[in-house]
């Protein structure tokens, strides 16, 4: 049986290496778990080097160093980048920009770093700092200049939601002004912190339509000078997203404590135990583990998906979303209009579009200290 599975499972292309959950920002939509890894439980340089070697052997060709803020990880990031580069893997640093000086950028480049992705929370300082809960905007601009100065490829990432989507124009202008090669407009994904704040973050249909116009206009105006990525958020599309290209299909995540996950948020699914790099090899976990095999293929699918041709496109949608909204990780993603529990999404969308006053409860900012694991 395992042999049979091995024949069908393809090796992963990319690894998300979450070095630490610590971060100077407090974005209320953070994808990190509510219970974060304590500094003392973070993997050390040597352990990460072992992970990278195993990843390269397994077939991983791109590594994304992320967090939290990877520059806050107290260990030797340059050594990891150097190690990954020697293994001929493409390296990407996903950062808030805080702590990225020209000198640091140069050292990372010399170690082999190919791409830097800097996050912005909005197109202007006031809103950006307000959303991140930290006076970061000017430091981010300096970090971007440092990346450009040393000649690395720059991507910007902005998570979109109700509070910043109306200034999409400004965000695109900022990215052009900063000469980014790529602008990723990421829709807020409602798990963990974002789910706590969904009422505050879910945009209205009108906002989505307006943003969609601005996006189309920018694409045709800018052409191939800057790559801009955006899709209609799943709450407003009638079909779910093919999350991560499928569970355990093309990518894997290693969390700061060494837990190996099919995606950054999978740890929230109760009833699945994820294996740790300190106890098993990446190869064993990818091919043999119960957790990675849990939602491969179609056997696990509910009838709604198994009888639907779109299962080849979306694989039944996102397992984390199914669990977060229905309590059942094997349910059809409620974002699908055919899902038995689609009404959960409909209600949230209805609420986001009702003209009545929104409840005045405050936004819950991501907080590291109150949620230690």
């Amino acid at each position, binding site marked *: 049986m395992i042999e049979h599975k091995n024949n069908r499972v393809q*090796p992963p*292309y*990319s690894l998300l290496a979450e070095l630490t959950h610590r971060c100077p920002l407090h974005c209320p939509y953070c994808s990190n778990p509510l219970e974060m890894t304590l500094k003392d439980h973070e993997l050390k340089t040597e352990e990460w080097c072992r992970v990278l070697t195993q990843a390269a*052997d*397994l*077939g991983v*060709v*791109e590594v994304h160093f992320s967090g939290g803020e990877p520059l806050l990880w107290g260990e030797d990031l340059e050594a990891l980048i150097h190690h990954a580069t020697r293994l*001929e893997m*493409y390296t*990407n640093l996903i950062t808030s920009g805080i702590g990225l000086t020209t000198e640091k950028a140069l050292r990372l480049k010399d170690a082999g770093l*190919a*791409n830097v*992705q800097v996050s912005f929370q909005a197109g202007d300082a006031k809103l950006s700092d307000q959303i991140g809960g930290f006076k970061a905007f000017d430091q981010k601009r300096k970090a971007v200049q440092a990346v450009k100065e040393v*000649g690395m*490829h720059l*991507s910007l990432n902005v998570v979109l939601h109700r509070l910043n989507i109306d200034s999409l124009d400004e965000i695109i202008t900022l990215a052009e002004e900063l000469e980014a*090669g*790529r602008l*990723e407009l990421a829709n807020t994904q409602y798990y963990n912190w974002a789910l706590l704040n969904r009422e505050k973050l879910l945009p209205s249909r009108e906002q989505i339509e307006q943003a969609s116009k601005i996006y189309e206009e920018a694409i045709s105006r800018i052409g*191939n000078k800057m*790559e801009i990525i955006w899709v209609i958020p799943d709450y407003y599309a009638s079909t779910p997203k093919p999350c991560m290209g499928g569970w355990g299909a093309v990518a894997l995540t290693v969390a700061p404590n060494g837990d190996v996950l099919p995606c950054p948020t999978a740890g929230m699914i109760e009833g699945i135990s994820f294996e740790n790099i300190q106890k098993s090899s990446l190869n064993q976990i990818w091919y043999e583990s119960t957790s990675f095999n849990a939602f491969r293929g179609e056997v696990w699918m509910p009838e709604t998906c198994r009888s639907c041709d779109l299962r080849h496109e979306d694989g039944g949608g996102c397992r984390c979303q199914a669990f977060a909204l229905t309590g059942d990780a094997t349910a059809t993603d409620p974002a699908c209009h055919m899902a038995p529990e689609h009404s959960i999404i409909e209600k949230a969308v209805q609420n986001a579009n009702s003209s009545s006053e929104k409840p005045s409860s405050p936004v819950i900012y991501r907080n590291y200290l109150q949620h230690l694991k």
Partner: protein
Amino acid sequence: MSSTIPKLAPKGRLKYDKVRGNHLLLLPEKVVVLNDSAASILTLCDGKDSVHTITEKLRSSLQLKSSQATTNGLPDFQKMEEDITNFLKEMVDQGWVVMQYDRAQE
């Protein structure tokens, strides 16, 4: 076009993937699987050789590879340069290759 000098965009890296047995072009957030001829053209896009020179190099390597090769068995030079040019235009449109003008003309 034949004197322009193509160079792989700085964001791109070429790699032969031993695990899958494929040539790959690695980009931020993207992996492109290359066929053999695409890979051999891109490998020569080092910012030094013109499209003309690249065509010459590829043509002579074809000659070397085929043991019974006669000049007649090789593709027409002009046709080959045309194909390579078209491929590189596609790569430029994707933003994966940048074109530079011949330094001698500057």
